[in-house]
């Protein structure tokens, strides 16, 4: 056990699975480092943010494939390779680029098992980074997990820390269905204790990072840490929160969400994707339908506004959910309850 960054945890998961199973291959733009251009360095980068560093030199060009900048072709190739016996991990770099290859994911990979009478397996992982806060502007900052969650046949994973990332990525690689694995780009340097050995975290099992009596907060990916910061703050003011990290949006652990709401009676959902038809609306609908009797106050959602992500750092800061906004939402549902009881 040692401290590892989110980046190292993902790298270690890829490395250990590639050592364990030679069917695991990597594909993507610049994942081998673009061969270093004219510098002559064989592995100059290891991915645009260094996540795949050292894998090209260990596993060679047969298993770490630098692809042309044509998402439709290599995501399609990865889906085909998965259907015919390999276990590819394809990297889409920025999730925003899914626009170029959505047909391969939505109409092909996600449908193989269903269209081929349950006889085809598609053990494909597509990794991509998501999220704002990098001042990378509107085409490189989106949190598009609701789009994937909407498509039956895909599993969608959003790790909230280094420990979670390693276990969930190994689970994704060993899974026989297509898995979309989304990494928040602000988290790559965040460190925590991560076991050196391989381990798996099952999909569809939410993690409670804390348990409280007053309000349930559901948060995804990087928002989990912000929700915990808000909960620390609120604890000092006498409000105790449960924080749920669902880990996967598909499958979604609806049972844990409903159970926790039944205990606290109040729900705040934190989702950094655009507010219409996102995970916050999905979970709000679930609880309104199946947990209405347990609610003591209206459900509150903390999301960005329905706009493209601004490039301006000042505007981007306003755009993003943060601990203060989460705490304010929690206080507002508590205030509602107090008003009702008065």
């Amino acid at each position: 056990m040692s401290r590892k960054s989110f980046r190292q945890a993902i790298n270690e998961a890829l490395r250990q699975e590639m050592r364990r199973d030679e069917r695991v291959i990597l594909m993507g733009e610049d994942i081998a480092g673009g061969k270093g251009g004219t510098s002559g360095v064989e592995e100059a980068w290891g991915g645009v943010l260094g996540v795949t560093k050292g894998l090209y030199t260990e596993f060679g060009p047969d298993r770490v494939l630098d692809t042309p900048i044509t998402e439709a072709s290599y995501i399609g190739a990865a889906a085909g390779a998965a259907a015919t016996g390999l276990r590819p991990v394809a990297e889409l770099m920025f999730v925003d680029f899914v626009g170029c290859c959505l047909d391969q994911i939505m109409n092909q990979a996600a449908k193989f098992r269903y269209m081929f009478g349950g006889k085809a397996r598609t053990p494909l992982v597509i990794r991509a980074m998501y999220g704002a806060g990098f001042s990378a502007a509107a085409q490189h900052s989106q949190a598009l997990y609701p789009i994937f969650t909407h498509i039956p046949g895909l599993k969608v994973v959003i790790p909230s820390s280094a420990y979670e990332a390693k276990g969930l990525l190994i689970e994704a690689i060993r899974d026989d269905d297509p898995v979309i694995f989304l990494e928040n780009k602000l988290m790559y340097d965040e460190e925590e204790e991560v076991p050196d050995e391989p381990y798996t975290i099952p999909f569809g099992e939410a993690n409670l990072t804390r348990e409280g009596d007053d309000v349930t907060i559901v948060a995804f990916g990087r928002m989990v840490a912000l929700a915990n910061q808000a909960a620390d703050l609120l604890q000092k003011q006498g409000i105790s929160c449960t924080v749920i990290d669902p880990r996967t949006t598909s499958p979604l652990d609806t049972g844990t969400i409903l159970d926790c709401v039944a205990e606290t009676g109040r729900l705040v959902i934190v989702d950094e994707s655009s507010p219409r038809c996102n995970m916050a609306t999905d979970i709000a609908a679930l609880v309104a339908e199946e947990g209405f009797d347990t609610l003591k106050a209206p459900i509150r959602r903390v999301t960005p506004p329905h706009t493209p992500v601004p490039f301006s750092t000042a505007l981007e800061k306003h755009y993003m959910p943060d601990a203060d906004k989460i705490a304010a939402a929690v206080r507002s549902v508590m205030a509602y309850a107090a008003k009702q009881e008065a």
Partner: protein
Amino acid sequence: MAERIAPITMPKFGLAMTEGTVVGWLAKTGDNITAGQELVEIETTKITNVYESPVSGMLRRQIAQEGEIQPVGALIGVVADATVPEAEIDAFIAGFEAETTRKSDDGDTTATPANTIIEVGTLRLRVQDSGNAHSGKIPVVLIHGFAGSLENWMLTQPVLAEQTRVIAFDLPGHGESSKSVGDGTTRTMARTVQDLMNTLSIDRAHIVGHSLGGAIALELAALGPDLVASLTLIAPAGLGPAVNGVFIEGILTADRRKTLEPVLSLLVHDKTLISRQMIEDMIRFKRLDGVLPGLRTLAAASFEGNRQSISLLAALENYVGPVSILWGENDEILPVANADIIPDQGMVTRYAGTGHMPQLERAGEVAERLATIVTGQDNP
């Protein structure tokens, strides 16, 4: 003669502890306390434990308030004679804090021994080798139980390390050791302990075994009596018929906090000792590749429902060295009634109000008892 003013500092429970929370003071400011009296309850991420006063005198100050988090070694209280003026105590506190700041600027000189991975045959074992290897005293080897780890000795090891070299390690299939357990029998595990001692150039040691580790200790005594200077068995398996099959099955099948908490609660009499972190650590341990098959093999080799399929009574009777057997009267996993079959009841110490883990629940008494065994002053 003690110093006129004595600092009470944040204790270090186990090697991994860096800070602790003051849960509550068990003495009020102005109370006269004696050395060994329960003084303050401290919570770490791993455990909540009562800290006993190292000195006698009047508790003059509670510096750390309830709920406050302080690093190990920080001043949390002051004990002094009633005659010491307040101003002198203020000066002592100011001086202590200045000294602490100076020391921390110098860097941490009391580095704790790191865990090392040692190759033993085809296995890799995580070992915590602490204490003084040149004390001239026989070393101690601590063997944890089923689904445990070397961390089960976090309150025992530091006390013994003041006396001699102390080896705690993760058995195969546990902690951060290799997850391959072979046939999973206590005999195979005992051979691994033998190999480990050999690798560490230890030809004779005081062997302390807890639970399934107690059965392994007995196997080791049968395998190589010369290796074993003394046997201390804490709530051991292998003696008596009963085991709580619900616990074994629960460890194997429960994988979420809600289902695992009642299982782990069987370990202790005081259920508040099972912290959120302990449950999380068990969940994380069970997620590691190879852990579940290993635990299943180990369980199948020694337990069958509510019965133990192993008996090491003969090994106990054949062993000629000193034996101490410590058992909690409220053990919910290996019931204390199992101890009734031990022919020499003089060996057995029973602790009231204590569950399956006396080395946590009666940490002070157990560590002290072990220290007397190590120093040859034990008189059972």
